[in-house]
């Protein structure tokens, strides 16, 4: 068992897969010599060499397009889009090309590739470098979408993503890179499409993703002090989605809250709220409540960014108020 930062866990997870499978290559801007602008690929160039850890021109469409082509030769590329906001400049490759290739070749072409990216706010990077865009990816059939919230999950889900024969969008949370956590020794492999109950509780179910997981856990501690026993589920995988774990928890607590960093409209929690309203309606004892960032671009100022992202206090207050009425 070793304690790693979330950022070091990214490199650790990629290294685990590169060492196991020589078909795994890493491509992106600044991923080689610089070790990544977020230092998530430090040491990989030295260990695996420039033929497998490849610095690319500043051309996001080409990073993804070439990763696709390389995957067609049998490689299993891990491509980095530095900030998830930059998906906006290469979305054709994501939504029209890699997501649809299996379908449009009648299953004859697989694209076993991972697109890793720095997602989310909290670092005062402003409106174009702080977005949570996992719900964009969730809307495109053919993609799988994961967001780890702990160093252990970074390693395990990266392994699962690399070994998956579908394109996987791997959303690292920039606000969690400095977080430390235990990572077991030896090979760590997780399973896509599985949520994890981080805290068990009887009174309310709180769903969270990425940076919102530690905040939801902090909120649960606040609530416990006020006599409310909240269950916190780390959704981890938006596609596939572990509806069984979510519905079982709601059946137990009767109350559902989603904590989403994405702007409100059509955030991932809206889909889950719809599923629970459909399939778990008779287990609910109160309305489903979504706690989200407002439907605005993120401000850069620290005080303003703190104001708009869901905080532990806001989560706790929302849950408490809802249960009291």
């Amino acid at each position, binding site marked *: 068992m070793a304690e790693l930062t979330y950022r070091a866990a990214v490199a650790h997870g990629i290294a685990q897969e590169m060492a196991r499978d020589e078909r795994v*290559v890493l491509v992106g801007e600044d991923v080689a010599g610089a070790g990544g602008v977020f230092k998530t690929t430090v040491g990989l160039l030295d260990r695996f060499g420039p*033929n497998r850890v490849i610095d*690319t*021109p500043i*051309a996001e*469409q*080409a990073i*993804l*397009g*070439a*990763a*696709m*082509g*390389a*995957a*067609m*030769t*049998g*490689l299993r590329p891990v491509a980095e889009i530095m900030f998830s906001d930059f998906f906006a400049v290469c979305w*054709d*490759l994501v939504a*029209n*090309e890699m997501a649809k*290739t*299996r*379908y*449009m*070749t*009648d*299953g*004859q*072409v*697989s694209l076993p590739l991972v697109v890793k990216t720095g997602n989310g706010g909290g670092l005062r990077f402003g409106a174009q470098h702080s977005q949570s865009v996992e719900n964009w990816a969730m809307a495109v*059939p*053919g993609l*799988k979408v994961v967001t780890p919230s702990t160093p252990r999950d970074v390693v395990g889900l990266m392994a699962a993503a690399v070994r*998956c*024969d*579908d394109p996987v969008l791997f959303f690292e949370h920039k606000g969690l890179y400095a977080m430390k956590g235990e990572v077991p020794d030896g090979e760590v492999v997780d399973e896509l*499409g599985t949520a994890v109950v981080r805290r068990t509780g009887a009174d309310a179910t709180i769903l969270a993703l990425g940076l919102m997981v530690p905040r939801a856990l902090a909120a649960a501690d606040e609530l416990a002090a006020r006599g409310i026993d909240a269950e916190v589920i780390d959704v981890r995988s938006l596609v*596939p*989605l572990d*509806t069984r774990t979510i519905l079982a928890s709601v059946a137990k607590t009767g109350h559902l809250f989603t904590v989403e960093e994405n702007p409100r409209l059509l955030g991932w929690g809206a889909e889950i709220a719809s599923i629970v309203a459909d399939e778990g309606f008779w287990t609910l004892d109160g309305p489903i409540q979504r706690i989200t960032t407002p439907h605005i671009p993120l401000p850069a100022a620290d005080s303003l960014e703190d104001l708009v992202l869901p905080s532990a206090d806001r989560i706790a207050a929302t849950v408490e108020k809802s249960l009291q009425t």
Partner: protein
Amino acid sequence: MTASPELVQLLTPEGERVEHPDYDIELTAEEVRSLYRDLVLVRRVDLEAVSLQRQGELGIWASLLGQEAAQIGSGRAMAETDMAFPTYREHGVAWCRGVDPLYLLGLFRGVHNGGWDPYEHNFGLYTIVIGAQTLHAVGYAMGVQRDGAETATIVYFGDGATSQGDVNESFIWASVTNAPVVFFCQNNQWAISEPLEKQTRIPLYKRASGFGFPGVRVDGNDVFACLAVTRKALADARAGQGPTLVEAFTYRMGAHTTSDDPTRYRMAAELEAWKLKDPIERVKAYLFKNQLADQAFFDKVDEEADQLGRDTRRRCLELPDPEPVAIFENVYSGPHATLEEERDQYASYLAGFAE
């Protein structure tokens, strides 16, 4: 359009062989007759597809009329292990790669998404989004480069695509990685209704020098020249000399697709002028003049073309409609709970209409 230092031409529109200092080609009579046959057959399949669309049997069709030489010449230049990435108009290249035209028709009939095995034919799926395939080709080339394979990649795109970011990014990548890729641009003068001058103020092949690799303009209606130039570019790629941009100077004699009406934006005289440079007529003239084929040969090819047209039509109409629930297949590599649930709901919904 006549031979010049800027334009590689080995066969004039009148069917005269001409020499070029950098490119030459030795073809047996049998090889020339075979090229002629391919040109005629793909034009015939294309014509049948246009007719089928007009009769409501295909949703849409992008005709290759006028571009047969560029496609057959470059397609025949490929080695078996070379990989091609097409647009949606490369019916002639598909023919050269052994893809049954029925697959192309089925795609535009909407009964499947293409269906041919890209690895069996080394011919990728038709790419509808303009220019995206240039990036796939470069990535593929970088992959085979790492395998140490003597394989070249060729990617097709049009004059309009050269304005796309994808294509320019692919040029940069291919250049700095010395990727074994041939960029085969069929400059057919029109991007739907936009003439070439909307895309560029220099000849397209000259753009290559800015990216650091050779560019060459070839008479795209000259199947000999297209074959020779592409063969050399592919050989250079396989030999580790990196990318080449080939600009095949040709003309889209038909509409952009069956949804387009070119009479609204271009002059009839332009089409008439290009008809005089027809890619098939010059090969026919060459064969005649040099007594490499007789009338019986031409009659036989025409008969074969008509038979192919009839067979293609019949087989197209016989293509089975897919089961509606098949739309849930191949979204993911394995089972997916949400999709299975949706498929079951859809199946039971459909079953509700049964007697």
